[in-house]
Structure formats: structure tokens, C-alpha cells
């Protein structure tokens, strides 16, 4: 997730552009850049770090009479946060500059083709193919607009794009497919941005582009068209939100915003990584020879990522038949772990800075093991230390309670497991079925989010309880741990995750009318066993909130409340099941008046032991 901003009109100076992307910094903040078009040439500035840290005296760019400019704040997906990888990116001539939000899935193929045609690339980004592609089209097209649209049609993936061309310095060329684009209509200026936040300083009149649409902006107006070039009529809307509201996408808290982003973040985690033609996944950051040689896995993580790791164990053992252990980052160094030859150590951390996990990675490397990281933040310490890894592409996660990063980690672990499985005898059919189910998850997550009001009602009824149990088996056991963690970290309610079969070895003694149990019972394989647990709880007058497969009336008949999940394969159940648990925790915390985004005693990234 990145932020893009563009301005065309009189006095397109870099300070306006920088103010614009400052409003978008919550969308990404590892590097930034601006470009202005004046006097038949482009002037470019790119920097690493937050925009707020920039010395304004340094930002002197272009001259007087600049007529348009674009700016970008980056959340790295392809290539580390460096000046070379920061946007805007330019073509070989330096006359075309492009900023981009999204992921270009076919960038490798396009890059190879363009390189064969003589184009020289400077960065590691997927974005850089775009200006070169436009440059190539410009050799045969009549005008820049046609070249721009021609290039857009070859892109596969998600994009919101804005481009400048030195030959038309008063224009900004914009296109959207899968990533948001908003146009702002000012009195003597026209603007473009990833969302309305940077536009409100200039206008409250906006136009939302739809997928497959493009626009050409001038200081005194704009035209919108399809990517095929047909004119499109768009309606103008008024921005009705305050600035903080806009930054949170209209949501009252970042946590709810991030919960609601999961259909997109789940999609982004597998976008461009599914190779249907082979019934497997493609994981660019990890070399194939390494994966072929793996005989054991050892997952190192903390907190929510540790829960993802526990599910990863079931995935790797079930799909790929690779024996897998999961260890807390804090214990890895001190537990004297036994690493068999050909053990792959997998470090999972949203921020990539979790100090205990980082220490585990270093210890594993000292022991001679191969390490890979599963991180959200590109270029983070764990990503760098591992040298190899898979980014989850969830976009910035600002709420302290991790939500979308968890589901994205599970998607990536699923891809890793299916890829390793296909290398080890998993049938093509099993691979295809798994990937098909994975590709249904974004839509299914969307369906789950429509239950928000109902889950809010349930949360309201249970917000006064002081103790909760969350129980599940197999894939739903770590999901239960995660549901309990969410509840305790933001609502300060005591909640315990328990493996359901272990209830009778102790925790069932806690069951009483004032201790409700959240029962996860959506997996087909162990559904009947979970019904046994539910009957045991009911016999002791315990209240039950069940999470079950849609249409499972038998489970619903045993529970006070039931939240239904769309049907999926058992290994993918956690990705859906955790979403109502996140919502439940959120609404309980809100009902109790807790500070959801900044819970007491907690920090987003744990960088101390």
C-alpha cells in the first residue's frame, strides 16, 4: 500500500506536493519522492525515510512556472526502501515519470521483454516497467495519451497510476485497476490521490475512478475514459469526512479499518504468486534448490505471529509432510534447539523488527541453518538478516492489535506449504483444489464482514463478562489462541485459548454461567468432536458462542450465538474464522470504552527483550 498524489494547475511547486503526501503517510512511510514538469523537462527528488524528517530547505526543485507534479510515499513491496527504489520512476530518456500504488504481477516478464528491446532498468521495483513500457509504446503511437493507455492494457495486477510527460507538462495521466484513485476538482487546479485525505486542503469536490478507467488531468479540467479510450461520464461527489476520518478510511479506529481491509490484504498476499498452470505457488524470494533440500522446518515467532506459526506447522506437516517445530523467539536461543541437517528456519514477524525473533534468526544462522523471513515491512531487520523471504504485502498495520497481518501470514504460509507439498508428491488435483479455495477467500472474507452489525450486537451482550475461554482443535486451536489474545489485549478481559480436547484435563473446571466459551467448530474433520465439547459445556451451564460452517444447524442448536463461516477447506478455516473473532474483540473493547488502537502497556513492535 502506497500513497500517490498529483497536482496540475498554476504554481505546481514541490511544497504543495509534499504537503499532499504527508497526508498519505499512514499508507506508507519508508521512502518518498516528488517530480515536477516545467519547461519541457522533469525534475525529480527521492529520499529514504519519513517525509516529516525531510529538511524543507532541501526541497528546491524545478523552477518557476511548473505546471504539474506528482508525489509518492512508499510502502515497499518489490525492492528494499532505498532512494533508487523510491518513486517516481522514469524511462530511459528521463522524460516520463510514474508513481504507482499496487503490485504489477507480470513485471518480471515485462522487464525481460523490455530489457531485450534495450531498455535499461535502475531499480528492483515492479513499477519501473511502467515508464519503460509507455516509452516503448510512444515509439509507435501518435500521442502520449495513446501510449499511456496502450501500456496500461499490458499490465496484470493491481494499480493506481499517475504519470507525467515532459512533452505535455500541464497534464497528469491517471489509470486505475484494483487500487483506489480519487480525482479532486479545484477552482484553478485538478488533483489526484489514493484517497481524499490530501485533497481536502484544495477542494471538497471529488470523482472516484472505477477499475478499468483512466483520466487526463489539466489545470482547468479533466477527461475520463476507459482503458480502451472510450469516454466515460463520472459523477462529482462531496467529501463529507474530517481529515482523521479520511486517514482511517471513515472507520472510527485503525483496527476496524484493518479488519475491513482483509479481503484486499488476503488477495495481495497471494497476488501474482499462484501458478495455476502447475497447481503450485511461486515464491520469488526463496530459491527453489533450497526448498527442495528442506527436510525439517523450525518456525520462530512471537505473539500473533507465533499463532500463525502454529497453524503453519499443521500446514507444512499436512500438505508437505515436512516435520515442523514452532518455538517462541524468546526461547529459541535458550532452549538449545536441535536443528537437524537441512532444517529451514522460518522467522515470522509483521514488523520484521521483533527483537526476540531477530535473535532467534541470528542464533539459527550461527548454527548453520538456512533462514527465511515472513515479514510485512520490506527491508526490515529480520528480512535483511535472513536475506531470503516472503513479504506478506499487507500494507501498513497501525492498530497495535495485529489483524490483517495475521491472515496475510497465513496465506503466505499456505502458499509455502502447497509449494513444498507439490515438490513432495502432493497431487496436481490437490494443489489446484487448495489454490482454488485460497482464491475464494477474499470474497468469503467480504461476506463475513457483512456480519459486522450482528457480531457487534453479540459483543454488546457479552462485554460485561470478565473471563472467556476460546477452544478449538487442529487448525482452530491456534485460532482460539489468537481470538483470546485479541480479546485480552484490547479489552483487558481475561481470556484463555485452550485445545478443546484438553478441556477435560483441567480447564473445564472453570466453566460456569459467568464464563462464556467461544467454540471454533468450522472444520469438517473434527466437527463431531467439537459437538462433544459443546455438550460438556452446556451440561455445566456454560454459555457458548460458536463459529461454524454455514448451514450447520446442529452446532447452532447447541450455542447461544452462532457465527457462520463460508465453506472452505479445513487448512484455510483459520483465515476466515479469525475475522469474526477480531470483530468480536474490537466491539467488546469499544463497548467497554477501551482505547482500541493504543491499548495500555502495549507497543506495536516489540523491540526490547
Amino acid at each position, binding site marked *: 500500500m502506497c500513497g500517490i498524489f498529483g497536482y496540475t494547475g498554476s504554481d505546481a511547486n514541490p511544497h504543495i506536493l509534499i504537503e499532499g503526501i504527508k497526508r498519505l503517510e499512514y499508507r506508507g512511510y519508508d521512502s518518498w519522492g516528488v517530480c515536477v514538469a516545467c519547461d519541457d523537462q522533469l525534475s525529480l527528488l527521492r529520499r529514504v525515510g519519513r517525509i516529516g524528517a525531510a529538511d524543507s530547505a532541501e526541497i528546491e526543485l524545478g523552477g518557476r512556472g511548473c505546471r504539474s507534479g506528482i508525489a509518492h510515499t512508499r510502502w515497499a513491496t518489490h525492492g528494499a526502501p532505498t532512494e533508487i527504489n523510491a518513486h517516481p520512476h522514469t524511462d530511459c530518456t528521463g522524460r516520463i515519470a510514474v508513481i504507482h500504488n499496487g503490485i504489477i504481477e507480470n513485471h518480471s516478464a515485462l522487464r525481460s521483454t523490455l530489457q531485450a528491446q534495450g531498455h535499461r532498468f535502475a531499480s528492483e521495483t515492479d513499477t519501473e516497467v511502467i515508464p519503460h513500457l509507455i516509452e516503448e509504446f510512444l515509439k509507435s503511437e501518435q500521442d502520449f495519451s495513446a501510449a499511456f493507455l496502450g501500456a496500461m492494457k499490458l499490465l496484470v495486477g493491481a494499480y493506481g497510476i499517475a504519470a507525467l510527460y515532459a512533452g505535455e507538462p500541464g497534464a497528469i495521466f491517471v489509470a486505475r485497476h484494483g487500487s483506489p484513485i480519487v480525482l479532486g476538482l479545484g477552482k484553478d487546479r485538478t488533483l489526484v490521490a489514493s484517497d481524499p485525505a490530501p485533497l481536502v486542503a484544495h477542494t471538497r469536490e471529488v470523482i472516484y475512478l472505477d477499475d478499468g478507467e483512466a483520466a487526463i488531468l489539466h489545470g482547468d479540467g479533466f477527461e475520463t475514459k476507459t482503458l480502451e479510450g472510450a469516454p466515460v461520464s463520472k459523477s462529482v461527489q462531496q467529501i463529507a469526512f474530517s481529515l482523521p476520518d479520511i486517514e482511517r478510511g471513515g472507520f472510527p479506529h485503525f483496527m476496524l479499518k484493518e479488519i475491513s481491509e482483509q479481503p484486499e490484504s488476503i488477495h495481495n498476499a497471494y497476488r501474482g504468486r499462484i501458478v495455476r*498452470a502447475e*497447481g503450485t505457488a511461486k515464491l520469488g524470494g526463496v530459491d527453489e534448490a533450497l526448498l527442495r533440500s528442506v527436510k525439517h522446518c523450525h518456525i520462530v515467532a512471537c505473539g500473533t505471529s507465533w499463532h500463525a506459526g502454529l497453524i503453519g506447522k499443521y500446514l507444512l506437516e499436512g500438505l508437505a509432510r515436512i516435520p515442523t517445530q514452532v518455538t517462541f523467539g524468546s526461547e529459541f536461543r535458550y532452549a538449545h534447539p536441535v536443528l537437524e541437517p537441512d532444517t529451514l528456519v522460518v522467522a515470522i514477524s509483521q514488523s520484521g523488527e521483533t527483537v526476540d525473533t531477530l535473535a532467534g534468526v541470528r542464533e539459527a544462522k550461527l548454527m548453520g541453518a538456512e533462514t527465511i523471513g515472513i515479514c510485512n515491512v520490506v527491508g526490515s531487520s529480520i528480512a535483511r538478516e535472513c536475506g531470503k523471504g516472503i513479504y506478506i504485502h499487507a500494507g501498513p498495520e497501525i492498530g497495535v492489535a495485529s489483524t490483517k497481518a495475521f491472515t496475510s501470514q497465513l496465506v503466505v504460509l499456505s502458499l509455502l506449504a502447497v509449494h513444498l507439498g507439490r515438490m513432495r508428491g502432493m*497431487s496436481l*488435483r490437490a494443489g*489446484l483444489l487448495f489454490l482454488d479455495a485460497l482464491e475464494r477467500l477474499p470474497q468469503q472474507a467480504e461476506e463475513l464482514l457483512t456480519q459486522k452489525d450482528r457480531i457487534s450486537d453479540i459483543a454488546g451482550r457479552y462485554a460485561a463478562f470478565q473471563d472467556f475461554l476460546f477452544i478449538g482443535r487442529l487448525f482452530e486451536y491456534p485460532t482460539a489462541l489468537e481470538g483470546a489474545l485479541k480479546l485480552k489485549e484490547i479489552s483487558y478481559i481475561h481470556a484463555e485459548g485452550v485445545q478443546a480436547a484438553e478441556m477435560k484435563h483441567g480447564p473445564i473446571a472453570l466453566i460456569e454461567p459467568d464464563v462464556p466459551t467461544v467454540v471454533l467448530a468450522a472444520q469438517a474433520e473434527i466437527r463431531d468432536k467439537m459437538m462433544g465439547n459443546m455438550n460438556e459445556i452446556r451440561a455445566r451451564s456454560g454459555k457458548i458462542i460458536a463459529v461454524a460452517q454455514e448451514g450447520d444447524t446442529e452446532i447452532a442448536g447447541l450455542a447461544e450465538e452462532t457465527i457462520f463461516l463460508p465453506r472452505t477447506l479445513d487448512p484455510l478455516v483459520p483465515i476466515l474464522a479469525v475475522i469474526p473473532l477480531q470483530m468480536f474483540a474490537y466491539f467488546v473493547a469499544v463497548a467497554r470504552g477501551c482505547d482500541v488502537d493504543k491499548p495500555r502497556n502495549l507497543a506495536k513492535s516489540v523491540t526490547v527483550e
Partner: protein
Amino acid sequence: MDRQIVLFEDHLLGDMNPVALTRPAFAVTCACMTLHEIAAEAGGAEPAWVARGYLGKLIARQFRGGPPGDGPKLFLNASIVPDVRYMEKFRELASHGEPFVATAGGRVSAAFLPAEVSVPRPLTPENITPWLLELKLPLLEEELFRTFDHQFEVVKYLEPLFAANIAHRIGRGSYREVRPGVHAAEDVSIADTAVFHTRSGPVVLERGVEVRDFAYFEGPVHVGARSRVTERASLKEHVCVGETCKIGGEVEASIIESFTNKQHHGFLGHSWVGSWVNMGAGTSNSDLKNTYGEVRLEFPHRRVDTGLQFLGCIIGDYAKSAINTSIFTGKIIGVSSMLYGFVGTNVPSFCNYARSFGQITECPADQAVLIQKRMFERRGIRQTAEDAELLKAVFDLTRSERLITDEPPAL
């Protein structure tokens, strides 16, 4: 039937070497049938095919179906085992007309495409599976067909397929039952002293077969047209011999493709022998380990468990063995190689293999082409440029197998 059957090779044929190195996978014989025969009979027409480029020119002479045309098509993987019991299923899938894709293990085994789906040109073994999967056709739950995934499976499937396949041959052919369970086509000559046991299965002798004195048969056995079974030969249970072969000595549960000579004494068991092979007198193979354990194939970086207690050898086309060659259990002999003495390891294609005498050298492609010409002439066949080109192409393809260094070459 207006629905065309297309037999397609895919990109996963590497483990079928050397069986499918010199012939399309649909032309591999197992249990006296090929998939091509079965598909042709099911479809009532020559099936179209998609095969590796280097085979194209040569096989176009023999298999006239050519590349797939327009209209609805049933795609069948060329590696599907030639089981006549699949014939009805082929017909049902073709006539039903519902789009689907079916898998077998790690590969696409079949798919049906309606007429409106246009076929990419060219369609190749490399692009056909990705294309079929990207179409996102409904994925069938059941794995409809078994496929040959490794060369040794040609031997593995011999027994399970034999009874149905040979019964089908008898049913559709015009044979006379010359002795109980012995079915002979025209111009077959059988010595009076030949002995046939058919309690376990029939013996089928195709047109022009000659059975000489004291030959012993224990069915099921199938002998292809114009082949000769020499004096005192013993063919025992699940043997199928191609056309124009000479067979002597003891043969058990084995497949011998056309134009191969194994006319002297010596044992051949649980093996597949390609075309234009000559086995010198006394050549024998082992098909059982002294431990009576499972036979395991050894390759440089991996071992393949076959699940078989009995497995002899796999011998590629044009290979030759000298007198008294002894081939150890479960060995793979490449195309155009020449064997001397003990064969205790796999043998790459185009090798002079005299390991027990300390000599392993490369057999140049030109020499193989010259030998091919001489062999063809003995059978009255004119060597064409395509025949020679095939050998040269296979020589290039198998270059990496041959490590002519201090180390013995190995597959």
C-alpha cells in the same frame, strides 16, 4: 463421432526415458496394446496428436492424425496406460460433451473442450498443460486414468492389463483357434512339437508368425506379425512381442517392441526391450534381488522405489548386447548403447559400456546412424533422413547423461 480425440504428450516425460525417447508416449506398447490403438478404436478415426518437436517429422509418417483441428475435442494424455477398459470411458467423455479437466497424480490426464475454445498455435508438450489448467475447466473429483510416470511402470502394468487387452484383441480380430486357447491369424506356421499351456491365458499369434520346434508357450502371450519364435524358446506368462522379431531362449513377463532380435539362449524377465535391439547369445538379466526385497532404481541424485519385487531391465531402442552379457536387477539401458560383460549400473544412451573391463566410451551419433542403416537394410527398410535425424537429436538430448571422465557414466 464428430468429437476429435487428441493424444497429447506433456512436459513430464523425462522419467520415461529411454522408453519414450524415440517414440511418442502414446506408441509405447504394454500388454499387447498401445494407447494410440485404443484411442483410434474409441474415436473411430486416427487421433490427432501433440508430441515433442524432434519426433514430429518421423512420426507424422506413422500416425496420420496430425495436429488438432477445429471442433470439440477430447484431450487425452499420451502417457495414459493402454488399458482397453478405458475405451468406453473415452467414448462416454467425448459424447457427453461437458467441459472438464481431470488429473492423475501430478499431471493433467484428460480434458474436454467445446468447439468455441480456440487452441493456441503451436500447441506443444510444454504449453498444453498450463493452457488446459488456465482455462479453469471444472476439475473432476475422480482420477479417471492411470498414467505411466516412470519407465519401469511399463513392466508394472503388464500383468494387470494383459487379460483384458488380449481378450479384446481376440474379440475384434479374425483368428482361428488352432489349439485350445491358441489363436492364430493367417499364414501362421506352428511346429508340431510346439507346446502351449493356456490355462492362465490365451496365446495370440499374428499374421505370418513362425513357431519352430520345441517352442514352449505359457499364456497369456502375444506375438506380433512376421515374428519368429525359435527352437526351444520358452515364452512364459505376460509376454508380448512386437512385429518382425526373433525370439529365443527364456522370456518371462516382458515386452519386446518391433524389429528386435533376442533369438539365442539366455533369460529375459520382467523387462521392456525397445525396437531394433540385438541381444547376443547368453545375454541374461536378473529380475529379483538376492534379498527378495523391493527393487529400487538408482539415479545420481535420487532413488526411486518401484514397489516391485520382480523388475528386470529397461533397454532403449538400438541397444546391443555382446555374448554372455549379464544385466543386474532393475537397470536402465539407454538408446544405442552397446553392452559387454557385467552391467551393474544404469547405462546412458550412446555408450560403449564395458565397465567390467574398465572401458566406457561414447558411441558417436554417426556410428549409431551407420549401424541403423545396416540394420534397416537387413530388413529391407530404406533409411530416411528423418530416421537419422532422430538418432542425432536423441544423441544431443542425452549428452548430459554421459560423463566421459574418470568416473563411470551413470543415468
